[in-house]
């Protein structure tokens, strides 16, 4: 047991470099997310940890032990695949028993039963994957990987195949599950909301490189690069200063002391249900969007307004 460490990992595909010098440490027992757009190299990074691909350069260590060169079946990590990759000819219980049987575990029956209980699938133990719902397949895949008590569980976009409502519910279950089993989770996702709500730490990747590593608050509120700022949420750019729309205020009168103010004209106002979204244009031509709560009042197109934010709400990003 121990921390999972990647040291200067490089991986080239025939056409381009997919992973370009990644170094990071994933503390034991942490819910860690690799967040980035598709093609950023996050899945390749996961595959190198699982042993499906080998890095061209760099070391993968787990608690001081080097994993490089070990076959996937020799590594103390297991994977929840994006498509789940459940064995279609085996029932939920048989899928979960697969890894234990390969190890010749004498306690297979009890462990399978416990794993089924853990993911609340005891009633569906004898069901084939084809007869399961999306959520049931997801839980089977989780139980199948967890029952082997890996040192690290790798999750490759495990929620992306679910419908939005189920996805939110599974998100909660996943978080609770990780807290209960205490195993290191490495979660791969392109969904910033998922990463923010689940993770202890997030590493943001772009074009094969790490952009920033930090807690969800750190990377959302103090992004290190423009890419991170933009990937985690909408940003209004006023020169080198970025402000999130929900931090942006609008008023007809000039705000009080200390506020950073820009004068602008309302170009559109939309009611979004939970808030109003007001889009404004500055004389310099920048577009600034503000999400404002009900009760602040409605703004009309063409109206001249003050757009402002409290000091400290802006993100100063080094160019």
């Amino acid at each position, binding site marked *: 047991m121990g921390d999972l460490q990647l040291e200067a990992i490089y991986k080239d595909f025939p056409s381009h470099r997919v992973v370009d010098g990644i170094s990071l440490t994933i503390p034991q027992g942490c819910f860690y997310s690799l967040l980035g757009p598709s093609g950023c190299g996050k899945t390749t990074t996961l595959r190198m940890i*699982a*042993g*499906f691909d080998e890095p061209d350069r760099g070391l993968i260590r787990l608690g001081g032990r080097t994993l490089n060169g070990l*076959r*996937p*079946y020799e590594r103390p*990590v*297991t*994977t929840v*695949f994006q*498509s789940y*990759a*459940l*064995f*279609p*000819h085996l029932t939920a219980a048989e899928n979960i028993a*697969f*890894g234990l049987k*390969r*190890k010749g575990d004498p306690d297979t029956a009890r462990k399978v039963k416990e794993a089924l209980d853990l993911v609340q699938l005891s009633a569906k133990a004898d069901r084939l994957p084809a007869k399961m719902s999306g959520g049931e397949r997801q839980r089977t895949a989780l139980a*199948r*990987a967890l029952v*082997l008590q890996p040192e690290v569980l790798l999750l490759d976009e495990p929620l992306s195949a679910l419908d939005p409502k189920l996805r939110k519910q599974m998100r909660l279950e996943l978080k609770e599950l990780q807290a209960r089993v205490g195993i290191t989770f490495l979660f791969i996702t392109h969904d910033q909301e998922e990463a923010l709500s689940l993770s202890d730490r997030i590493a943001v990747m772009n074009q094969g490189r790490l952009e920033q590593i930090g807690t969800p608050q750190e990377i959302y509120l103090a992004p290190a690069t423009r890419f991170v700022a933009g990937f985690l949420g909408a940003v209004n750019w006023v020169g080198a200063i970025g402000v999130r729309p929900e931090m942006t205020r609008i008023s007809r009168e000039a705000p009080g002391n200390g506020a950073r103010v820009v004068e602008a004209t309302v170009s559109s106002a939309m009611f979004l249900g939970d808030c109003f979204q007001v889009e404004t244009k500055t004389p310099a031509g920048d577009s600034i969007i503000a999400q404002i709560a009900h009760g602040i009042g409605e703004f009309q197109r063409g109206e001249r307004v003050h757009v402002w934010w409290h000091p400290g709400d802006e993100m100063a990003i080094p160019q």
Partner: protein
Amino acid sequence: MMRLRALFLLPAWAFTLLLFLAPLLIIVVYSLQTKGVYGGVVEPWTLENYTRLFDPLYGVILFRSFLMAGVSTLGCIVLAFPLALYIARSGTRKTLLLNLVMLPFWTSFLVRTYAWMFLLRDTGLVNSVLLALGVIAEPLPLLYNDWAVIVGLIYGYLPFAVLPLYSNLERLDKSLLEAAADLGAKPWEAMLHVVLPLTAPGMRAAGVLVFIPCLGAYLTPDLLGGGKSMMIGNLVQNQFTSARDWPFGSALSLALMLIVMLLLWALLRRDGEEVL
């Protein structure tokens, strides 16, 4: 709309009725009549041709045919599986390799069977090489026995086993093998517990496609068995030629057809149309 559809189906119906059902009907009629002195059929109508089928003599030949076809089918699948797996994993060379598997079809089956005679006979390539190398002192009796027939059948029908197995293995989700390895299965364990069970439909299809033509084979046992290795196909042929017993030949063919249909039904009942 309905009429137009009927018009396009007409050639297919005409073809089926004229060239498939009509000959079948003729065979049914022949099988119920008496043999003529110089071949052909004459009155009276009789069921005797069918009662003769139960003669142990023919039962032995039928059993031999099943055995030979069964061994050949097994041989085909055992040889075809690794080949199909290799082709399915060959990336861009798949098409080339598949065409190589089909290559023998470019020449006549008869010519290719003769080629096997040249390979296997006492003065043939195999014996010549072994003699020249001093491995053997006398030519091995490779031709004109059951094994020669089985080798010929496996050779002839191997592509029919490769193709369904290939299409099955090709569709096999690669992530299942990764999942197996991830869960601790060594490559041979993944093969045994994941690939083999999931290729069962392909194996059944290969089995049907090879077993049926092997069961009715007559050219291969005739040429490579040298008349010593009779299968039911040769028996049918004999009735229409040297024995001049068309009615019994017809009854035999119908019996063979019935057996094949029962077999197919038993197999296809399991996984519906998915097999073929």
